[in-house]
């Protein structure tokens, strides 16, 4: 990632909801979303909620391994969410189809492992609509 040190502060802070609909490995969209989120925080804006949907739920996989010279996008999201105490939701119906499960879902579906970073919660689309209603801006990626 390039330095964001010279990013200007926003004159008026806005609330943003980001809808991430792309897998981390298949297109640039997830990387763009990550950098956009970093820039928003750097500029002093507020992120109301990250919502991972469709193939975007793979951004919450803690089982992703990348070659050493490539960025691990799920790990970078996890670090950003933890460092800034962000609200992050992974859509349940998208997630369980793709093997993204937390402890509760693993138990519910009798699976032997979990794969979702604990920094994101598994939830429903209502949380997207709710977050959007409380935001000045909603942007979708992918």
């Amino acid at each position, binding site marked *: 990632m390039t330095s964001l040190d010279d990013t200007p502060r926003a004159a008026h802070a806005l609330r943003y909801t980001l809808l991430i*609909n792309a897998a981390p490995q298949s297109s640039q969209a997830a990387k763009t979303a990550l950098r956009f989120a970093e820039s928003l925080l750097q500029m002093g804006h507020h992120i109301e909620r990250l919502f991972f949907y*469709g193939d975007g739920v793979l951004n919450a996989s803690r089982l992703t391994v990348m070659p050493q010279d490539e960025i691990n996008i799920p790990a970078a999201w996890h670090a950003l969410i933890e460092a800034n105490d962000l609200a992050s939701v992974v859509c349940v119906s998208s997630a369980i189809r793709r093997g993204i499960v937390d402890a509760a879902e693993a138990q519910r579906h009798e699976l032997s492992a979990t794969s979702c970073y604990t920094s994101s919660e598994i939830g*429903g*689309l*209502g949380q*997207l*609509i709710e977050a*959007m*209603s409380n935001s000045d801006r909603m942007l979708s990626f992918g």
Partner: protein
Amino acid sequence: MDNSKPNKQTISIIARRAPYGGDGARQTLDIVFAAAVFERPLNYIFIGDGVFQLVAGQNPKEISSKPHGAALETLELYGVDEIFVHRDSLHSRGLDESQLACRVNLIEERALKQLIAESTYVINL
């Protein structure tokens, strides 16, 4: 909720993918249902290949998929009645209104642009 926001936040949800071959169509529909449950004013807009989602009598069983049109027929029960179809997209694909699974409003390009411009939020997957 923040009271400084306008009460009538209109969401425009744009369907522009064909019903099968990818999951964009279903993802878009699921967002429509979620928004409807929250009783948000919404416009469900079909453009480009998205108009194929509306065709009546779909039978995708042979490609191991669930029919998309069947779910669209239930939209009215959810109070989703603002369904807009871009007229040129429909006609340029050899379709007309009589072949669709639900009642829609045909809309011209200029009105479509205005509808989107006046929306508080736009979701375009």
